[in-house]
């Protein structure tokens, strides 16, 4: 009995300690954030430099802007980099008060968080939505409260465009198109017959906008150039699933020569599976190598490009912080902003066989990966 009471007390004090811990660890987390963010900030100096002065001006005038940021979660390297970018941009030193909420991949949590932001009377709400859909009600509430909403990363699909002020993010379909155009140019340059390109597509989580855009980019090119798309299966954006799916595909087809992975984590898994099966990964398709194409261009992903395991890595830029800041500054200055702003994204290739690709009349340069390029990357 006595023992039981003790354990109750223990449990209770545990809860109390944890709750207290939450408070104190909050600062601890911020501290690590600052430390981690140091390299990030340095690397993006060029992007933030312009904004830095005006930020100072803001803080001089004594007005601290409160930003509520609802993030999807921490499910991938890309996402963590995205969070870091926001945290380092909207730091206290830069004159902001960032209220960060992690939704743990749940839309309902984000809806709750936005309602919470409205009550906290934040100046801006930044939303990286878990899903594209289902935002009508809560964004209406934000609009009624007069709080501008800036969407980052995925787009929201709402009946009324005025529910959000601006959107910053990647054009996933363009990413797919760029990769596909590069493949076409590369094959042409190497004199490879389009019909001998046997491609498998390891898709992202079905329904995610990145998956939809990147798959579409490839699919359109397959139809256009007459490539041979053997199979498209989801690898759920994870390394483990990418590996498993690749293993299975290798059993079904023995002529795969291009693997189109929709993010870096899947590419890592696919490379492992390919190598385990005795295949050589690389760009030399003609001599039996299997080409791996990937997206995101995380440092790890680019390192694999450098070691020639990934042939092409199309960037998906997570550094939304500075861009969101630009929009906020413009809004504060009373200017109008573009409703949609795509971030600039590079293409990283293993060599300079293809110097640039053209999509819809726009030309995009291809960067050849060197150690310098990797070192300069922020994530």
């Amino acid at each position, binding site marked *: 009995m006595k023992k*039981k009471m003790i*354990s109750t007390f223990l449990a209770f004090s545990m809860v109390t300690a944890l709750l207290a811990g939450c408070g104190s660890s909050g600062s601890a987390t911020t501290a*690590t954030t600052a430390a981690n963010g140091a390299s990030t900030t340095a690397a993006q100096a060029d992007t933030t430099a312009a904004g830095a002065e005006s930020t100072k001006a803001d803080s001089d005038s004594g007005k601290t802007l409160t930003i509520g940021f609802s993030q999807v*979660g*921490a*499910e*991938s*390297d890309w996402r*963590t980099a995205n*969070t870091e970018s926001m945290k380092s941009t909207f730091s206290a030193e830069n004159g902001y008060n960032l209220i960060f909420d992690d939704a743990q991949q749940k839309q309902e949590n984000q809806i709750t968080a936005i309602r919470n932001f409205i009550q906290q009377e934040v100046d801006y709400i930044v939303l990286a939505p878990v899903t594209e859909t289902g935002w009508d009600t809560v964004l209406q509430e934000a609009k009624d409260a007069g709080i501008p909403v800036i969407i980052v990363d995925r787009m929201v699909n709402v009946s009324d465009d005025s529910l959000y002020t601006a959107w910053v993010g990647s054009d996933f379909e363009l990413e797919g198109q760029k990769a596909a155009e590069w493949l076409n140019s590369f094959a042409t340059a190497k004199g490879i017959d389009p019909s001998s390109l046997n491609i498998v597509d390891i898709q992202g989580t*079905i329904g995610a906008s990145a998956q939809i855009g990147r798959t579409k980019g490839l699919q359109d090119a397959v139809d256009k150039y007459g490539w041979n798309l053997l*199979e498209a*299966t*989801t690898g*759920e954006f*994870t*390394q*483990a*699933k990418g*590996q*498993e*799916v690749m*293993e*299975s595909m290798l*059993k*079904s087809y023995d002529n795969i020569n291009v693997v189109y992975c929709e993010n870096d*984590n899947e590419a*890592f*898994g696919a490379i*492992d599976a390919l190598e*385990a*099966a*005795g*295949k050589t990964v690389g760009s030399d398709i003609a001599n039996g190598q299997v080409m791996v194409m990937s997206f995101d261009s995380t*440092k*790890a992903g680019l390192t694999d490009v450098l070691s020639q395991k990934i042939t092409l890595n199309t960037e998906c830029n997570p550094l939304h912080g500075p861009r969101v800041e630009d929009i906020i500054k413009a809004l504060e200055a009373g200017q109008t902003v573009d409703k949609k702003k795509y971030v600039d994204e590079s293409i990283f290739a293993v060599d300079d066989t293809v110097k640039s690709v053209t999509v819809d009349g726009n030309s995009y340069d291809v960067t050849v990966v060197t150690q310098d390029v990797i070192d300069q990357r922020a994530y």
Partner: protein
Amino acid sequence: MKQKSFSWQRLVHARLFMPLVCLAVVLLANVIRTPDFFKISINNGVLYGYLIDIINRSSELVILAVGMTLATAASGGQDISVGAVMAVSAAICCQLLSGGEVSVTSLAAPIVLAALAGVLAAGLCGAFNGFLVAKLHIQPMVATLILYTAGRGIAQLVTRGQITYVRVDAYKVLGGYIGSCPIPTPVFVALIVVIIMAVILKKTALGLYLESVGNNGKASRLVGLNSALICFMAYVICSILAGIAGLVASSRIYSADANNIGLNLEMDAILAVALGGNNLGGGSFNLTGSIIGAYTIQALTTTLYAMKVSADQLPVYKAIVIVIIVILQSPVFRSLIAGMKRKRAVTVDEK
């Protein structure tokens, strides 16, 4: 005639009958679809084939199923925290190996030490679960619900929300291959775990103790068994095995992905135990059945993947299999069928 039908009856009622039939049906479906399903070749110096994939991929599940069987037997409940515990173990191991960096190419700590730390952490999780279940007599599902929710949080706390990579070949061994051995290491790990458990059950009275405690804890205490300790041990073993499974899963991707390692594997492990013909209410257990159950689930998964069923739709088939099996195993259903048979027999007799 009567003799024959009797032996058939005995076969049908043998405990391993249902699990084996399930496995056979799944494999048969594969052969019909892919005639060279059972083909195993040597490719790049390693064994290669669908079957190898299934056996390799189910390793973690087999390890979990073994632990889950023991926990179920001793407590009559299931440990739903094993997936999260896998993540904790992997996170701690990788974090030690990387020395806190996000991605490393050299080790910050010896692998054995880090692996031991991971397993130890898992053991601690098991001790927590075991304490709640055995000492405070909390329903297993509720007790393990705590770590089910907290586990991944702790794992993320350890890795600071990042995916920690350990890009060192030595770390890939556990999930890959040992030197030039053609059989994937996870298969060995699963095999070793099974053999060790089998030896323990064969050479010690643990099996009898577990069954006795799970069946009647009070009576077991009075014949000198420390019911609480035995139940506690079952949970510790279950979590340690989850920790080992976590290391294997982590080694496969040489990283600790707190959000995805072992995701939803607890449900599969419970399913394996149920498929193996074990009573989820505790008491007597059948380890072989659980292992066959685990292989069946992976075979089903691989089959459905190969049949191009979307991963999202996979659960529908799993659900159908579960429902069929539990209905067939349900005593009420069996007595219903038996009653019908008897009635038929009676009418025949009357004629």
